[in-house]
């Protein structure tokens, strides 16, 4: 295997890391008005506490989760400059929307608890909800379009526009991401909390999980039938099995296994995408001769060698300390862990 292919795999791994990790915090963000809403909460004070439980399940980790996509972006730039250039200039407006959404969402996490006024919190809650939903949807649209092919000319330039991307397969991809992340997020909440909210999260996972399964199978079949190969069929089957297994584990109250199930589903879905993509990185729907491929989009061997050395040394270290963070904050949270009265600041009073 040449280094460029190795880096194609690395980028797949980075996207897997991103979508598995940020996937559940997108899910928690989207569930904020549901699990923290009037349907489940007894009153406004209870709703506020429940929202805070939800936010605190991802509080220490969401930022580290998000770095995976920055690393994926940086690695794409370094290993496949043409892929980076064509993709980011081509998908300009969806990326703009994603950036705005992420900005508002992250500030929501950081600023929401900094003032006691209900209106202030309500505004940031909206930012967190939309800031989780929009990127989940648009990453799905974008990645699905990459796999399916978009109009690219002989100069490696994208020639479509925003509406080119809003085709049925792309939109289905977006919905699949949203439904999968909702399920994944609900299971994460069930895994990280206790009491009433834990059981309600499991119920939600059960219901949304069925929708996610139907949509995901439809999408993967669609992609498989049009562009599939043996390996991608294998990962498709594993993805489907993991999702069904995860949902069964969730039903049985085995949240840890359920979470592994949805994580494997997301990972295998990404693997399916990358296997279908191989050996292209961004196929052209205009003319197959104009495909961006691993070979014609990559950096030089020297650059890839440097990057490989750095990645082999530091990726295990990153994975270790990020994993350690999850260990430090492994305890389940309940409403009683949320400090009474006005939210406490990082500074104790």
């Amino acid at each position, binding site marked *: 295997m040449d280094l460029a292919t190795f880096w194609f795999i690395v980028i797949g791994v980075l996207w897997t890391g991103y979508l598995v990790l940020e996937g559940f915090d997108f899910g928690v963000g989207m569930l904020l008005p549901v699990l923290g809403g009037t349907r489940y909460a007894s009153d406004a004070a209870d709703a506020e506490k429940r929202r805070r439980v939800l936010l605190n399940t991802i509080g220490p980790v969401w*930022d580290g989760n998000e770095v995976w996509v920055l690393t994926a972006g940086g690695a794409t730039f370094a290993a496949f400059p043409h892929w980076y250039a064509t993709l980011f*200039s081509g998908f300009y407006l969806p990326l703009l929307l994603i*950036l705005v959404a992420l900005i508002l969402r992250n500030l929501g996490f950081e600023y929401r*608890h*900094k003032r006691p006024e209900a209106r202030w919190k309500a505004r940031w809650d909206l930012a967190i909800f939309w800031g989780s939903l929009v990127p989940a949807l648009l990453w799905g649209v974008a990645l699905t379009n990459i796999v399916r092919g978009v109009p690219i000319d002989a100069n490696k330039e994208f020639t479509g526009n925003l509406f080119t991307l809003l085709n049925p397969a792309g939109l289905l991809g977006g919905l699949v991401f949203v439904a999968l992340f909702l399920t994944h997020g609900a299971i994460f909440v069930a895994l990280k909390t206790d009491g009433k909210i834990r059981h309600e999260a499991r119920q939600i996972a059960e219901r949304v999980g069925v929708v996610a399964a139907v949509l995901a199978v439809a999408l993967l079949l669609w992609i498989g039938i049009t562009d599939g190969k043996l390996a991608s069929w294998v990962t498709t089957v594993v993805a489907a099995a993991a999702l069904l297994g995860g949902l069964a584990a969730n039903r049985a109250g085995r949240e840890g296994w359920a979470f592994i199930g949805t994580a494997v589903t997301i990972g295998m879905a990404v693997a399916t995408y990358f296997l279908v993509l191989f050996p292209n990185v961004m196929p052209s729907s205009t003319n197959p001769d104009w495909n961006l491929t691993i070979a014609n989009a990559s950096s030089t061997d020297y650059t890839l060698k440097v990057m490989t050395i750095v990645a082999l040394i530091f990726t295990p270290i990153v994975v270790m300390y990020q994993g350690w963070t999850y260990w430090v904050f492994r305890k389940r949270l309940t409403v009683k862990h949320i400090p009474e009265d006005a939210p406490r600041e990082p500074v104790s009073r």
Partner: protein
Amino acid sequence: MDATDLARWQFAITTVYHFLFVPITIGMSLIVAVFHTAWVRTHNPQWMRLAKFFGKLFLINFALGLVTGIVQEFQFGMNWSDYSRFVGDIFGAPLAIEALLAFFLESTFLGLWIFGWGRLPEKLHATTMWLVHIGTVLSAYFILAANSFMQHPVGYTYNAASGRAELTDFFAVLTNKVQLVTFPHVIFAAYMAGAGVVMGVSLWLMRREAKAAADDAQDVARTDAPMYRRATRIGAVLTLVAAVGVSVTGDVQGKIMTEVQPMKMAAAEALYVSVPAGEGAPFSVLTVGSLDGSHANALIEIPGLLSFLATGNVQGAVRGINDLKAEYAKTYGASGNPRVADVATAFVPNIPTTYWTFRLMIGLGIATALIAIAVLWLTRKGRTPTARWLAYAAVAAPLLPVFANSFGWIFTEVGRQPWLVFGLMTTANGVSPSVSMGEVITSMVVFTLLYGALAVVEIKLFLHYVRKGAEPFEEPQDPADRDEDAPLVFAY
């Protein structure tokens, strides 16, 4: 205004805005780590209160630096795709490594620091902030290595077959001589900004506490004024140390800049006509009238200073804009590289911009150092002065070094023009061909409005927490003895 201008404005707006928060983040993470460590070492409650207080201000600032940084990672591809294709083989690596080495470190350990109260053993907890600081410095190193390549490309070869610049020596990129002086210069400047915030905020609170005590005829020593005095002085000392570092590195940087980018030095002085050796080029502090070279009316001039800044010799020769422009056109216009073919007709640096930003950078830096000296003198031997002008000094102390940072960057980036990568690609050749004017305008309007609104939110929140001051001390509990069901010490 054409597509290049729009893309440049967009990059300028998003990057200058991002870099308002970055130096404060680098500087304050160091100071918070110092306060936190001082608490662990001495268990003096003041250090804990200061660490938490400035930690909170740090986080308000960090949040905006972080979110605006995400834009940076993507916008090379969005607005500068031809540039990305041309230098991606070189420029991408430091960016990717920055994410892997620095961003993960910063974000993971900051999460641990924020939520670590009552959960992490205290020594480990203080270490997390040091790791955040190391992350910010590593981040600066890699992104500056990338930028230094644009100022002075090294460790590459131009491959005519692939039509791009390709990396041949990564170590050379990391140890670019421009990088080796730019990195310490930027870090010291960031320390000035972080120290300026700590000095300004503490000074304001010290004055408030001391004044309230005086008004109520209370003993100042029993208020928080002495604690804030201490923080003020720490901020002032760090400001001065950093100011010395900035000056020394800036001086070396000026000489290297003259060597590798003589146009930038000429643009810094608006020097159109070369000054031969032996005559000594002066440095004008203030100029009125035309800057187009037809008649420079320097009001105050320091003889020989420009020669000294550029060459280290008051009699040294300094080349002017006109000569350099002709030389660039001749050298690069005939190089056969299509990405520089427009160099003769391309804009020269915008001279009023380079001229004034160079002076503002230096002037604001000096003003910050003067404030620090005055503050150290007035607070000597336990004094807690309350003079009215100190309130203004407190407001100026954080703002001046932050703006000095901005002006320094505007100078160095505008001064590089017409080059995007010096000698290899002009700016007009780097923009994305597939992105329409409408798209750039849309994103520029969206970012400008969003960033403007966020600035208002951020400043209000920041001032709100400054006014509240440090929280009273609360004895921390050993994480090992904590009740499993007790409320968290810190929660969102």
